[in-house]
């Protein structure tokens, strides 16, 4: 009797678990963190948004690839608070299926934004809301959005939050911004040649490259990399939609540093 009861409970549990996994409202769990609990006016701070993605589903990077939509964040900020730079993304995964390639995340992902505060505005506390929209897909796709808010106290003392270490660790692993002056690209009839002529000092070997600018390269084409000393040439097949080549391309470059550790940088290169 005990065994039967146990079996029924197990089946019911499995059934409910399955149901909850397919409950489309629970496919993404949104949370928001700051690296500070209290800050002084005039200082900078970070906000991290965590999207916990249900097993087997994925959401998209800023360039979604062959299908899908980029995940977007719209901020509601009090007067006196401004964004510094763009959203910091983690390195995406290539999600391949039926000959198509998407760039996205099949697991929890953090999006981080830096902010600055103005000394001119008198703030008692800072309330920030992130309105996040995403498309989540497995076989089917569902457009969703949600809001997450956070309050940061303003005071005499700067006080780190309990999430400060986590945010600093994520920032340390996130792609660095590198200002390339000499690197450039040339679009041929079918191929795009990217010449990385200046790179961060610690680059030992370029291992992968993502073109962030959408509609430029065939997403399922092989990334062919030729590493030379202090430079690299990357060849990719052009997308059939790349009719008008822009003057600048945004890239995410993955590399191994001189100790063999994986690192990455983001850069913008021109066609000159």
């Amino acid at each position, binding site marked *: 009797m005990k065994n039967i009861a146990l079996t029924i409970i197990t089946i019911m549990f499995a059934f409910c678990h399955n149901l909850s996994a397919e409950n489309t409202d629970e496919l993404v769990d949104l949370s928001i963190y700051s690296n500070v609990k209290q800050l002084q006016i005039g200082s900078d701070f970070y906000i991290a948004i965590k999207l916990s993605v249900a097993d087997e589903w994925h959401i998209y990077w800023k360039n979604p690839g*062959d*299908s*899908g*939509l980029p995940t977007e964040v719209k901020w509601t900020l009090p007067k006196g608070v401004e964004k510094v730079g763009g959203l910091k993304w983690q390195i995406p995964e290539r999600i391949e*299926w*039926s*000959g*198509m390639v*998407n760039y996205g995340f099949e697991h929890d992902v953090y999006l981080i934004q830096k902010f600055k505060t103005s000394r001119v505005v008198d703030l008692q506390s800072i309330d920030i809301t992130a309105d996040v929209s995403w*498309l989540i*897909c497995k*076989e*089917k*796709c*569902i*457009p969703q959005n949600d809001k997450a808010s956070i309050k940061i106290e303003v005071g005499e003392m700067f006080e780190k939050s309990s999430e400060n270490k986590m945010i600093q660790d994520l920032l340390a692993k996130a792609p660095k911004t590198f200002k390339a002056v000499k690197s450039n690209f040339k679009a041929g009839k079918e191929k795009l040649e990217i010449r990385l002529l200046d790179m961060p000092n610690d680059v030992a070997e370029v291992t992968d490259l993502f073109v962030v600018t*959408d*509609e430029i390269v065939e997403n399922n084409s092989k990334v062919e990399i030729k590493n030379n000393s202090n430079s690299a040439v990357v060849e990719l097949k052009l*997308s*059939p*939609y790349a*009719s008008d080549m822009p003057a600048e391309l945004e890239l995410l470059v993955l590399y191994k540093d001189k100790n063999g550790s994986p690192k990455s940088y983001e850069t913008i290169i021109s066609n000159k």
Partner: protein
Amino acid sequence: MKQLLVINKGLDMKKISLVLAIILFATTAIFAKDAAKVGSKAPDFVLKDKDGVEHKLSDYAGKYVVLEWVNYDCPFVKKHYESENMQKLQREFTKKGVIWLSVCSSAEGKQGNFTKDELDKKQKDFKTAETAYLIDESGEVGKLYNAKVTPDMAIINPNQEVIYLGAIDNIPSADKSDIEKADNYVMKALNSAMNGETVEVKSSKPYGCGIKYANK
């Protein structure tokens, strides 16, 4: 004798090379059907519609043809059907003699692959106005036209040349309220071409749900 053998060998090699060349040519002719490209001849195909009637693209020579990749359960397709944007285009242009072929490349058992009854109901509810709804379960025609998402659009002129490939409009979203603000590439391309003007935007990256092709 030795010399003769050499000659024979030479002939054999020639024969083998010839056979190989023929095999290579034949296989190339079968498999290397070029994918659709703007400005090139539209690859021909034959597909059955939902009622089992065959449609051959080349039979529509002399007319403008729109190919629309569709999956009624995809939110991007729903955006254009629930707002009636797609049906309005279908009505407007089929009245002007355009052949509008909705193509479903969802494999059997995958999202978007409906039974005849399900299709009839969905099309009745949406009041769709296409010329025919074609079934491409193998995905061959979808791949021939490099269709990756739904909706994905192709326009073919009366000379059977591809004049447009890509998105329905310029705002990639699943939000119906964006339709009014968007530039409808399909409408613009058809109007320009039918008025003898140059098609300004000949291709664009389509946006939507990935097509549920058969796993191969």
